[in-house]
Structures are given as C-alpha cells and as structure tokens.
C-alpha cells in the first residue's frame, strides 16, 4: 500500500487519495481527512484531532508518514496508545485498524476504512435499535445485539450489507484472518456470497480455501468443524495448502431456522436444512483460532441463518408484490381491450357483457361493422388466468383486423387456426362463434367447438347444430359456415360455457334448459345474468361468463 507524500491544498471529499480517519464517539461518527503529516492527536484544542477527554494526554500521539506507510507514534502518553486492542509505541497502520488514545471503547478512530458503508451500517444498526454498546458488553452480547438490530432492518436490498457486517463481526469475534460466506443456490450448489479479510478487503474468489473441509462440515451433522488444513486428504486441496501454507479452519454450517413451539435444551432440536456455510481461517503463523468459544460459533450460526432467511423472505415478498402490481396493470389493459364499443347500425341492436371470475380472463366478445353488415364474435380461450388472457388478446386483435379487411368468416377462422397451431403454444385453444348479420337479415355464422348459439324467433328457441372443431387444436382443420335468415324482432344469443356450467350449492348446473327458458322470454343481457346469479344464489363463479345479444330490427 503506497501513498505519495501528502502536502498541498485541502483534499476533496472522498477523493480516495488521502486516507480518512473516522472518529467514533458514542454513536456518532466524524470523518477526518489525513491531509498532512505529522498529524497530531491529543487533548489540546489546537491538535489536528482534539479529543476532549481527561484520559487523553495533552500531546498524546502523532501519525506520521514514512516511505509511503503511515505510522502511529505514541508521545509518552499516560494511558497509552492502542492499535486493535494492543498497546503500542510505534506501529504501522493498515486499513481498518482501530486506534484508541487513552480511552477504550467509547471513543476510537478507524484508520482509512475501505467501505464507509459497512461502518455506517453497523452504527446505523445500533442507532435504530437504540442500544448503547458499552465497554461492559461482552463480545458475544455485542454480536447478538448487532444481528438483532440487523433483523429489524426490514428493507430489501440490504442483504449484501448484512452479509458483510456478519463477516466482519465474525472476524472480530474469532480473530480470524479471512471469512467467507457461502449460500446454497437453487440447484443445490454452494455459491460464494461474500468474503472479507480482517483488513476489510473484499475477497472475491474461493480458490484458496479448502473445499474438502467445507464439504465435510456440511455433510456432518455437527454444529461446526474446527480443523486445520494439514488433515485434509483431498489431493486438489493439497495443492492450495502448499501454495498458501497451513491454516486453521473453522467451518460453520448454516441451517434454516425451524419454527419450534417450545425450545427445550434437553431435547435435541431437529436439524434444519443446510442453507449455506461460514468459513473462517487463519494462518498458523499468525493466530491460533482453534480455541474460539463454541458458544460464539453457535450464536453466529443461529443468528446468521435467521438473518439470511429473513432477508430472503423480505426479498421474496417484494418480488411477489411487484408481480401482483404487474398483474393489475395487465388486467387494466385487458379490460380496455375487452371494452366493446357498441356499434351503431340502423338494422340491429348489439349488446355484450363479460363477467370474469378472476382479475384477468380468457373470454371476450367483440362487434365490428363490416362493409356488408355487422359482425359479432364470442370466444372462450382454454384454461384460466394470465395464459388464457394472453391468447384472448391476440385472438381478438387478429379477428378484428381480418373482419375490417373484409375477409370471409371461414377464411378468418382457418387463418386463426393456422396461426395458433403453427405456434405450438401447447394445447392452448379457443372455442368461438363468429356471426355476420346483413342488413337484409341474412345471418352467416361459424361455430368452432362452442356452445350452440340460440336463435330466438317469436319466443321460440332454436339451437343450430352446425359446428366445427375449436381453433388452435388441429392443424389444417377445415371450417364450414352455416346460414339462416332472421326476421325483424329475431335475436341471436351467444354464451360461453361459464353460463351453462354455472353451479349452485347443490352442484347442479344452470344448463341449457334454464338458458333457453330465459331466452324464450325475449330476455336481454340483464335478465340472463340475473337468472344465473339467482340460480347460483351466492355460490362463486368458477369460470368467466360472457353473453352476446344481437337483435335484428330490420
């Protein structure tokens, strides 16, 4: 880490060239730029960093720069200068080192922290949970407090910060050099989610860790595994051991938190599913972490698992909410597409209504004025919900455009059939009726596998039986139309099977007889829908209901 000698004008904020000091006092942080050396620390007011506390000596310490390195030099202070908890006279400073001048714990300075964010997150966490971390708090309690606060941070997108804070806390508590967090992805493999070393640098790959130890820890049913890499027999891992020298490894599997009504210490808890692992190591040469307290490891394992699980649940909830929003937008669009503008023609009166059983559905009806008359369409796409709606919208568009282009009815359905069978959407099809009424009363219609139309002439109901297979099912199917003649006062009524198959509480269907009975009374849409509603008597609709009513006035 080389810094050029720092002189000159005051640096810009966050320039990155000048190291920063972060003074932490109670729960407040203050950033100070180390913009010149020697940098004086003491109780006197004229110091570069003045700390007004009786335990700080007037001229306590200096921070100097030599050969690109920074050193803290104690100036014979009464209560000493500490770097990372160790009393020093003169020490080279590394990123994230914690300096204390006479006062311990409540006031300290962090040297050149790499990620301002992680420190801020930690302080923010303690702020929002209103805890005061005093010197008397043990390390384990501190960890629990940090993580408890993190859990209350209920915003998504903070998962990464939480993971980093977790690793930093783990390193601090175990005294390890490197910490990695692995999470199980959907395909079951472990993926490196975050890595940090004790200097605060991010670790971006897991090539130098022992995967064999990781696997062993996960396979075992124990809470954690403390070992050293000399015991690893894996040949591939040996290569890394030799290259990066021997290390002590602590591996803590993280298990999904189980909901337990009663937690009894005497009853061994059922083991939750493994969701990841924490891997901490340290070189033999530097520190022996093998004697880390089991309590601390257990606490880390439990709290970490809850934290991660919680953050994931929050993210899943967010995703579900966003999806629901998109669905509402889609429903609104579909409603506008489905809104039939009732066309005005002198020889007929058209009415159509759709009652969907979900927000978004696969039924639609439409009416289009063509050069030789009025065309009406009623269609029912198979299935329900979004997939049916998608097809319904496409179908509606295709038919509308072909009708306005003046194509013949059988041509239109053949074209629609070709399109949908060609696309192989997989068993999505539609039953439909297209009918065209001319001003002289001639009615041509094509029924594609749909509920038979009702022709009401003088209170008599006729069900024309002519029909074809549905569209979208059978490639190359041939479609034929039928014709009949309407007299003034005659009606054509089309319904979807949501009407005939409407069920009441007894499990009876509305069925054709009741439908014909209502139709014969020269009923309009309102009467038909009321009849269905009365019949169902509160039982919910299990399919979309659409009715078209075309009255020939002549």
């Amino acid at each position, binding site marked *: 880490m080389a810094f050029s000698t720092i002189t000159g004008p005051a640096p810009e904020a966050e320039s990155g060239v000048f190291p920063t000091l972060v003074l932490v006092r109670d729960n407040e942080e203050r950033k100070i730029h180390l913009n010149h050396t020697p940098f004086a620390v003491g109780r006197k007011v004229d110091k570069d960093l003045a700390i007004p506390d009786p335990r700080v000596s007037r001229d306590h310490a200096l921070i100097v720069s030599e050969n690109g390195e920074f050193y803290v030099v104690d100036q014979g202070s009464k209560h000493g200068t500490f770097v990372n908890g160790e009393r020093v006279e003169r020490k080279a400073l590394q990123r994230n080192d914690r300096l204390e001048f006479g006062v311990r714990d409540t006031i300290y300075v962090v040297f050149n922290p790499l990620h301002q964010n992680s420190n801020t997150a930690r302080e923010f966490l303690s702020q929002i949970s209103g805890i005061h971390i005093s010197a008397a708090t043990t390390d384990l309690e501190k960890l629990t407090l940090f993580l408890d606060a993190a859990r209350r941070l209920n915003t998504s997108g903070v998962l990464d910060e939480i993971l980093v804070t977790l690793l930093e806390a783990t390193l601090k508590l175990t005294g390890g050099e490197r910490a990695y967090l692995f999470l199980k992805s959907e395909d079951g493999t472990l993926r490196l989610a975050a890595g940090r070393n004790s200097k605060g640098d991010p670790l971006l790959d897991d090539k130098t860790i022992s995967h064999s130890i990781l696997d062993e820890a996960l396979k075992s049913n124990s809470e954690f595994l403390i070992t050293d890499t000399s015991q690893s027999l894996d040949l591939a891992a040996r290569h890394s051991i030799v290259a990066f020298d021997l290390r002590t490894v602590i591996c803590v599997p993280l298990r999904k938190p189980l909901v337990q009504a009663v937690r009894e210490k005497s009853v061994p808890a059922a083991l939750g599913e493994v969701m990841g692992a924490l891997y901490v190591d340290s070189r033999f040469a530097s520190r022996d972490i093998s004697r880390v307290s089991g309590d601390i490891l257990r606490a880390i394992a439990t709290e970490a698992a809850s934290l991660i699980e919680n953050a994931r649940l929050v993210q899943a909830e967010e995703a579900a909410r966003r999806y629901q929003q998109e669905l509402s937008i889609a429903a609104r669009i579909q409603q506008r597409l489905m809104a039939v503008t009732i066309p005005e023609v002198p020889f007929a009166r058209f009415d159509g209504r759709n009652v969907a059983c979900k927000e978004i559905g696969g039924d639609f009806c439409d009416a289009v004025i063509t050069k030789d008359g009025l065309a009406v369409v009623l269609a029912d796409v198979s299935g329900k919900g979004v997939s049916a709606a998608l097809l319904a919208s496409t179908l509606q568009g295709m038919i509308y455009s072909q009708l306005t282009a003046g194509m013949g009815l059988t041509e239109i359905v053949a074209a629609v059939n070709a399109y949908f069978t060609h696309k192989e959407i997989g068993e999505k099809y539609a039953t439909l009726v297209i009918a065209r009424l001319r001003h002289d009363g001639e009615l041509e219609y094509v029924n594609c596998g*749909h509920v038979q139309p009702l022709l009401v002439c003088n209170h008599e109901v006729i069900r024309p039986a002519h029909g074809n297979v549905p569209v979208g099912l059978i490639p190359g199917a041939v479609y034929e139309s039928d014709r009949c003649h309407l007299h003034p006062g005659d009606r054509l009524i089309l319904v979807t099977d949501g009407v005939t198959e409407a069920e009441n509480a007894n499990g009876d269907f509305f069925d054709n007889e009741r439908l014909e009975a209502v139709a014969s009374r020269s009923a309009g849409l309102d009467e038909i829908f009321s009849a269905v509603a009365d019949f169902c008597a509160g039982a919910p609709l299990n399919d979309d209901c659409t009715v078209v009513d075309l009255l020939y006035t002549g």
Partner: protein
Amino acid sequence: MNLKMETSVTDGVTVVACQGRILFGEEATALREQIKSLLKSTRQIVLNLAGVSYIDSGGLGTLVGAYSSARSAGADIKLTGLGQRLRDVLQVTKLVTVFEVYDSEQQAVAAFRRKDA
C-alpha cells in the same frame, strides 16, 4: 394433484386407466408427461377414462394434444370409458369426429388387433 394413472399391457396394447380429475395445471401436465414417455416405447395406447369425474377445457386440450403427438409419432390413441358429460363436450366441440371412442376397454384393444390383422 387429483389424478392417478395405472398402466398395463393387454395383447401388446398399452392401457392407461385414469382415476380422478383432469384439470388445467398439474393433472393435465401429468397426463401429458405420461403419454409422452409411453410413446417412446409403444405405438398403441388405450386411454380408459371411466374413473375420471371431470375434465376441464385445459384437460381437453391435453387430450387432443396427446392425440396429435401420438399421430405425428406414428402411434394411435383410442378412448374408452367416457361418461355422459365428456361425450357431450366432445359432441359440442365436434372433437368426436377426431377421436375413436369405444364402449369398453376390450373393444378398444381389439380394434388395434383388427388393424394389424
């Protein structure tokens, strides 16, 4: 998941007896997958739907889809055990012209033999 399928072989014909409902979703998918895997080893399938209480539009689509897949693989699916409701649906949709429907499993199996003869 409300559909059970039992497969057996009679006279070289694979018979799939279905029990439950065939609905858009899990059941339709299960039926589709079953037919798909059977088509890898056989060309003659009889679908016995006597135990099926209800088929919705999605289930019907799967039935036709299975039939089309079979035909393009050079195989054939015959139906039997149709209840009144299903017969009505096949009537309205005119799909009764597409499927070969038999009154009993034996007749459906026999129909395959007659073809070979």
